[in-house]
């Protein structure tokens, strides 16, 4: 195999992830697996973070805890970021938490405020049925510059005469449309919703139809 060009080698079959490739790191030639490279491309090497509503102070994984108090923080090199989940729990992200996906699998009733979580791409709330006003927050996700997707498949109940803000994210058109459709289905009235700023997508024709329904119910809608 000596003195053979790469172009002369036999093509590999489908990768399993365990294959070893050479890299240069810090001036030294080292080996790395194909899976490690795939992980890096998928999300900067971070792992999805699944948080459950569990016992007070339980450590979910390194640097993450769930505690039933009032405020949580993500702290990274880019500055303070926070996820507050009022009513039931605090989600705490310690130094180095870089998850691009956050899932709260049993969070069903309460209020949620996510802000400035720059690495966050997907926020999943598969059990979230009811947003309530707990004084400082209801349902707001702001200034998460990478956030494209908010999964709220069973959200059905929202308060009226209040506001919801999703400004400064990178929400996909599907997520924008879904939020508007969920607001319509809730039957809530006289609210304000902000879907503006950042790289949030414009609503599709279906989203604009939802918007028209909401405006007829006294809502004020801001969108890109």
């Amino acid at each position: 195999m000596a003195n053979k060009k790469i172009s002369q080698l036999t093509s590999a079959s489908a990768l399993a992830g365990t294959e070893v490739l050479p890299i240069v790191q810090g001036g030294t030639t080292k080996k790395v697996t194909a899976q490690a490279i795939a992980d890096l491309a998928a999300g900067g090497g971070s792992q999805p973070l699944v948080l459950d509503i569990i016992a007070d102070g339980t450590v979910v994984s390194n640097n993450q805890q769930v505690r039933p108090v009032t405020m949580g923080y993500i702290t990274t090199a880019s500055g303070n970021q926070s996820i507050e989940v009022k009513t039931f729990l605090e989600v705490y992200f310690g130094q180095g938490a870089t998850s691009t996906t956050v899932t709260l699998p049993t969070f069903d009733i309460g209020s949620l405020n996510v802000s400035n979580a720059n690495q966050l791409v997907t926020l999943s709330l598969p059990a979230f049925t009811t947003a309530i006003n707990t004084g400082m927050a209801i349902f707001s996700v702001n200034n998460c510059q990478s956030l494209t997707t908010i999964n709220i498949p069973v959200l059905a109940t929202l308060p009226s005469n209040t506001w919801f803000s999703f400004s400064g994210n990178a929400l996909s058109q599907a997520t924008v449309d879904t939020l508007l459709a969920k607001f319509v289905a809730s039957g809530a009235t006289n609210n304000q919703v902000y879907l503006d700023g950042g790289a949030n997508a414009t609503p599709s024709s279906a989203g604009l139809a939802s918007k028209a329904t909401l405006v007829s119910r006294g809502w004020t809608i801001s969108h890109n």
Partner: protein
Amino acid sequence: MYIQADQNNVKTTTAPSWRLVHNGTTVLVLKEQACVIATGEGNELFVAATEAECLAEIARLGLIKPDYIQ
């Protein structure tokens, strides 16, 4: 300047400006935006070049400004 309702009774604008939305009693929106904003029956949409103009309108009408609106 107040935005007049269209044939669907919607008040909307896309022009970058300070926006004040109120219901005659309470401030609902007070924000500088460059996006689409739309509101419906029962609400008024006031647009201005400066925040000061919106604050003057709030004072003129004696509107309540909730704490969450800066």
